[in-house]
C-alpha cells in the first residue's frame, strides 16, 4: 500500500511536469516554461527605463561604433568603415526584430514545417515548387561574385550572429518561447530569400489561366473588347507625349498561335486589383522653399511586428536615413544629404506559365523547338518538426520549374496550374543589394540611375528628387515581349513563345523634370503605348489614385511638407465620383423602404470622402460590389474566369447602357442596366441591415470595413484594431489590413528635412511600448520629423540612449 501510494504520487508528479513541458500542436504552447515567470513570456515584458546606454563588446568589429537612439528608438549608427556599419546594422536590427527576420526567411524558403510541424508541409512544398529556394541560392551566388556585396552581406550576418550568440534562452523573443524553438545562425542566403519574398509579394501572381478560359469561351473579339490592352481612362506615370530618346530594339513577332493548346486545370494566384502604393515629387518652382519635395507611401499587407525598420547609417562616404525590411542591409526607401527616393510596384507582366509536353510518364524529357530536351531534377529536403524529412523532386525545363504535375493536387487548388512551367523574373539573378548600396550613396540623378541598372526584381517605379531635379523611372528587368505575350497560358514547346530578350535598362519608362512640374505614380500604366514601343503588360492598377494625386499636385504652387502630409491622408475616391451620379439617377425611389431612403440620402449628399464616420462609403462599396457581381457573375464565374476590370465596367455604365452583359443569362427575362443597378442597391442595403440592423453607427465606414493590423504569424491578441478612413481607390489606401506601410515626406535643399510614420514601432517585442507606439499617430495622419544627424554628437539632447560598441581584442 505504501509503495502503491508512492508510485502513484510520483507518477502523477512526473505526468504534471511532463504534460506542462510539451506543446500541443500550434494551439497550446508548453505551459510550464511559457507561463513560468522565471523563464517564460513574463520576462519579455519591457519596463520604462529598461533601454539604457551601454558599452558592448562585439566580435568582428574593427573600430568603435556609436549608435545613438532617438525618442522613437530609431538607431543612428556612426561607424568608421562600411564593414562596421553593416555589422552594427545587423546587430541592432536583430535586437529589435530577430524572430520576424527569421520567420520571414523560413516562410520564403519553405521551411515552416521545421518549426511548426506537418500542418505547413503543403505550403513549404509550394514555396519550393515555385523555385524560391533554388533561385535564392542562385541570387546569393550572384551577390557573392561581387566582393563589395559579399563583404556587405557577410558583415551584416556577422552582426546578427553576434547578437544571437549572446542571447540566453530566457531572453529569446516571445514567439520562440511560444513555438519552443531556438534561433539559428543568420546566413547571407537568408537575405537573398527576403528579396525573393519581396518579388513574390509584388509579382507572384497572374491571371493567365482565367484569361485563357475566357478566351476559349468567348473568342478573341469579345476579349479585345472586355480586356483592352490599355484602359478606357488613364493618366500614365510618364506624361502622355513625353518623347523617348532611345532607338528601340526590334519587338519579337507575334506568333499565329498566341495561346497554349489546352488548359484543363486549376487556377493561379489571382492578380489583386488593389495592390498599390503612391509616390510623387514636385519641382522647386512649386514649393515654398524653392527646392523639390518628395513623398512616398508603399502599400502592403500591414502586420506587426512592423514591415519596416527605420535606421540612419553614417560612415565615410555615406549618410543615409530611411526604412528597410529587417534582414537586409542598407536603406530601402529614404534619403541622404543629396537625394531622396521612394518606390511603388510596377505591376508589369513578369510571370508566365508554359504548358509542358512530357515525352512519357517518367517525365525525363519534354518537347521544345521540335526536339526532346532533358528535364533537370532538383531535390528539395523539407524538414518536419517531430517527423522524418520529406524529399521532394522539382522538375525544371529551360522555362523554369514545373510547379505541379498533371496528376498532382496543388497547394490551394484554386491558385496554381498543373502541368505548366513557370517563367518569372524572380528567377533571374541580378545584384539588387549593390543597387541599394549605390543608391544609398548616390549624390545625383546620373549616379542614381546607374545604381538601378543592377535592380532586376521586383520592378519598381522609383521616384527621385535632389535639390534641383525630380524624376521617375519604372525600373526593373522586363522581358521584351510580343504584344499580348503572356496574357494567356503559353505553349512551352513553341520557341516563339519563349521570352526572347530584355528591354535594355536605359530603355525603361522614365522622365526627368517634366513640363508639368511634378512626377507621380500610383501603380497605373507606366506609359501610354503611343509613346513607348515595348509591351509591359495590359493589367495595371486603375488610374483613380494617380488621377487624384495629379489633380492635387497640379493645383499646388507653394507646397510645404504639410501639403504632402495632407495629400497622403486624402480619402477622396475618384471612382465613386465617376459613377455615383449615374447610379443614383437610375434608381427608382418611389417604393423605397425607410432604410433604402436613408441610404439614398446619405449617398446623395456625399462628397466621395471615405471618412471613418460616414455611412455613405459603406453603402457605395456594397452597392458597387453587388453591381459588379450581378453584371458579370453569370458570364464570368470567378471560380474559373477572369472578371473584366473595374475600368471596363465603368465604361459600360457611362457609355454602353445597352451592353448585353447587363442581362442575367440565368433568368428568362432580359435585365437592363437599370434593373441591375436597382437590384444591387436593394441587395446592398439588405446586406448592411442584416449585419447591423436599421441604419445606425455600425453602418459607419470605419466599422464596416473592419480594418486591423494582425500579427505576422496570426497570433490572436498580438495585433491591433483600427477605426479608420480611406479606401483601395483613395490616396489613403487603407483597405482591410492592406494600406500605407510607411509615409515619408522629404524636403530637399541645403539642409534636407524629412518626416515619416509607420503603423507599428521599432521593436518587434509585443511586450514593449515600442511595438505599436506609432499606430495611433499613423491612423491620425501625424508625421514625425526624422532626426537626420550630420555627425554623432549633432543634437545630442535628442538622442539620450547611446551604445558604444567595441571589437573583441
Amino acid at each position, binding site marked *: 500500500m*505504501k*509503495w502503491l*501510494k*508512492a508510485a*502513484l*504520487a*510520483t507518477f*502523477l*508528479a512526473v505526468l*504534471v*511536469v511532463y504534460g*506542462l*513541458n510539451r506543446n500541443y500542436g500550434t494551439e497550446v504552447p508548453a*505551459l*510550464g*516554461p511559457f*507561463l*513560468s*515567470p*522565471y*523563464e*517564460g*513570456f*513574463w*520576462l*519579455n*515584458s*519591457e*519596463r520604462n527605463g529598461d533601454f539604457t546606454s551601454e558599452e558592448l563588446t562585439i566580435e568582428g568589429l574593427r573600430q568603435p561604433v556609436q549608435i545613438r537612439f532617438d525618442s522613437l528608438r530609431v538607431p543612428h549608427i556612426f561607424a568608421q568603415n562600411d564593414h562596421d556599419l553593416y555589422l552594427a546594422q545587423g546587430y541592432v536590427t536583430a535586437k529589435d526584430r530577430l524572430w520576424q527576420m527569421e520567420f520571414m526567411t523560413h516562410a520564403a524558403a519553405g521551411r515552416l514545417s521545421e518549426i511548426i510541424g506537418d500542418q505547413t508541409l503543403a505550403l513549404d512544398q509550394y514555396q519550393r515548387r515555385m523555385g524560391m529556394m533554388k533561385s535564392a541560392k542562385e541570387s546569393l551566388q550572384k551577390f557573392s561574385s561581387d566582393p563589395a556585396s559579399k563583404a556587405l552581406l557577410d558583415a551584416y550576418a556577422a552582426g546578427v550572429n553576434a547578437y544571437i550568440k549572446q542571447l540566453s534562452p530566457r531572453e529569446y523573443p*516571445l514567439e520562440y518561447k511560444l513555438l519552443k524553438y531556438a534561433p539559428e545562425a543568420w546566413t547571407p542566403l537568408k537575405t537573398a530569400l527576403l528579396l525573393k519574398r519581396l518579388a513574390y509579394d509584388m509579382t507572384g501572381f497572374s491571371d493567365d489561366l482565367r484569361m485563357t478560359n475566357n478566351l476559349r469561351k468567348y473568342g478573341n473579339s469579345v476579349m479585345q473588347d472586355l480586356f483592352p490592352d490599355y484602359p478606357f481612362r488613364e493618366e500614365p506615370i510618364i506624361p502622355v507625349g513625353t518623347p523617348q530618346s532611345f532607338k528601340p530594339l526590334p519587338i519579337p513577332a507575334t506568333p499565329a498561335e498566341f495561346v497554349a493548346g489546352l488548359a484543363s486545370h486549376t487556377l493561379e494566384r489571382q492578380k489583386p486589383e488593389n495592390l498599390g502604393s503612391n509616390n510623387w515629387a514636385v519641382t522647386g518652382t512649386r514649393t515654398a522653399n524653392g527646392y523639390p519635395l518628395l513623398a512616398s507611401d508603399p502599400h502592403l499587407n500591414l502586420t506587426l511586428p512592423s514591415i519596416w525598420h527605420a535606421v540612419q547609417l553614417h560612415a565615410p562616404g555615406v549618410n543615409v536615413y530611411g526604412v528597410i525590411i529587417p534582414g537586409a542591409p542598407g536603406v530601402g526607401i529614404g534619403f541622404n544629404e543629396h537625394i531622396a527616393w521612394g518606390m511603388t510596384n510596377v505591376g508589369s507582366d513578369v510571370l508566365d506559365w508554359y504548358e509542358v509536353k512530357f515525352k512519357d510518364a517518367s517525365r525525363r524529357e519534354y518537347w521544345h523547338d521540335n526536339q526532346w530536351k532533358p528535364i533537370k531534377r532538383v531535390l528539395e529536403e523539407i524538414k518536419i518538426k517531430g517527423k522524418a524529412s520529406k524529399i521532394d523532386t522539382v522538375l525544371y525545363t529551360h522555362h523554369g520549374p514545373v510547379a505541379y504535375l498533371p496528376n498532382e493536387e496543388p497547394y490551394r487548388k484554386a491558385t496554381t496550374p498543373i502541368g505548366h512551367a513557370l517563367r518569372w523574373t524572380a528567377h533571374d539573378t541580378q545584384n539588387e543589394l549593390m543597387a541599394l548600396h549605390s543608391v544609398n550613396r548616390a549624390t545625383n540623378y546620373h549616379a542614381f540611375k546607374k545604381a538601378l541598372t543592377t535592380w532586376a526584381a521586383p520592378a519598381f517605379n522609383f521616384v527621385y528628387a535632389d535639390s534641383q531635379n525630380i524624376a521617375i523611372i519604372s525600373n526593373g528587368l522586363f522581358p521584351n515581349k510580343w504584344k499580348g505575350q503572356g496574357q494567356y497560358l503559353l505553349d512551352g514547346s513553341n520557341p516563339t513563345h519563349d521570352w526572347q530578350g530584355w528591354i535594355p535598362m536605359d530603355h525603361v519608362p522614365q522622365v526627368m523634370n517634366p513640363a508639368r512640374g511634378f512626377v507621380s505614380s500610383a501603380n497605373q500604366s507606366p506609359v501610354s503605348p503611343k509613346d513607348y514601343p515595348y509591351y509591359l503588360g495590359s493589367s495595371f492598377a486603375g488610374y483613380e489614385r494617380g488621377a487624384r494625386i495629379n489633380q492635387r499636385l497640379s493645383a499646388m504652387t507653394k507646397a510645404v511638407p504639410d501639403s504632402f502630409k495632407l495629400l497622403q491622408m486624402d480619402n477622396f475616391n475618384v471612382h465613386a465620383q465617376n459613377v455615383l451620379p449615374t447610379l443614383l439617377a437610375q434608381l427608382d425611389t418611389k417604393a423605397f423602404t425607410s432604410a433604402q431612403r436613408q441610404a439614398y440620402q446619405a449617398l446623395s449628399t456625399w462628397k466621395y470622402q471615405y471618412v471613418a464616420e460616414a455611412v455613405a462609403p459603406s453603402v457605395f462599396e456594397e452597392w458597387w460590389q453587388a453591381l459588379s457581381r450581378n453584371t458579370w457573375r453569370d458570364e464570368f464565374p470567378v471560380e474559373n474566369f477572369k472578371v473584366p476590370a473595374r475600368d471596363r465596367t465603368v465604361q459600360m455604365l457611362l457609355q454602353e447602357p445597352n451592353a448585353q452583359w447587363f442581362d442575367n443569362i440565368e433568368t428568362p427575362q432580359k435585365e437592363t442596366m437599370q434593373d441591375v443597378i436597382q437590384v444591387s442597391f436593394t441587395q446592398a442595403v439588405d446586406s448592411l441591415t442584416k449585419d447591423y440592423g436599421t441604419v445606425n453607427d455600425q453602418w459607419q465606414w470605419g466599422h464596416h470595413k473592419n480594418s486591423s493590423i494582425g500579427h505576422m504569424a496570426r*497570433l*490572436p*491578441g*498580438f495585433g491591433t484594431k483600427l477605426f479608420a478612413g480611406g479606401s483601395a481607390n483613395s490616396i489613403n489606401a487603407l483597405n482591410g489590413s492592406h494600406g500605407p506601410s510607411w509615409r515619408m515626406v522629404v524636403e530637399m535643399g541645403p539642409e534636407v528635412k524629412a518626416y515619416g510614420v509607420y503603423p507599428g514601432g521599432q521593436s518587434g517585442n*509585443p*511586450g*514593449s*511600448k515600442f511595438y505599436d507606439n506609432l499606430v495611433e499617430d499613423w491612423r491620425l495622419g501625424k508625421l514625425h520629423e526624422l532626426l537626420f544627424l550630420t555627425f554623432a554628437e549633432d543634437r545630442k539632447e535628442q538622442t539620450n540612449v547611446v551604445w558604444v560598441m567595441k571589437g573583441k581584442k
Partner: protein
Amino acid sequence: MLFVLILILSLIAQLFLPWWSVAVVCFALAFWKAHRGGQAFTAGFLGVGLTWLGAALFWQVVSDGILSARVAEMFTVESPWVLLAVTVMLGGLVGGVSAVSGFFVRRALV
C-alpha cells in the same frame, strides 16, 4: 519550516535552472522534512505558488501589463489577472504534487 525551505530554495533554483527544477526541490525537501501528505502538498503549493505570484505580479506591475493583456487575449481568458491566477495555480500544482510524492516515497522507504 518546510514551506519556508521550499520558498527559498525553489526561488534560488529557478533563477538559474529550468522551470521544472522546482519539482526536484519540492520532492527532495518533502522527502527530508514532511510529516504528512497534506502538509507536504500545502507547503509545496504555497511555496512555489508564492514564488510565481511574486515574480508574475512584479512583471505585471512594472510593465503596466502590456504583454500579459496580449497573452491573455491569445489564450482567450478574460483579463491579465485571470492569466496571473492561472500562472500561480500551475506553479503551485507542480510544487504540491512533487512535494506529496517526495513525502510518500520516503514513507515507502522508511
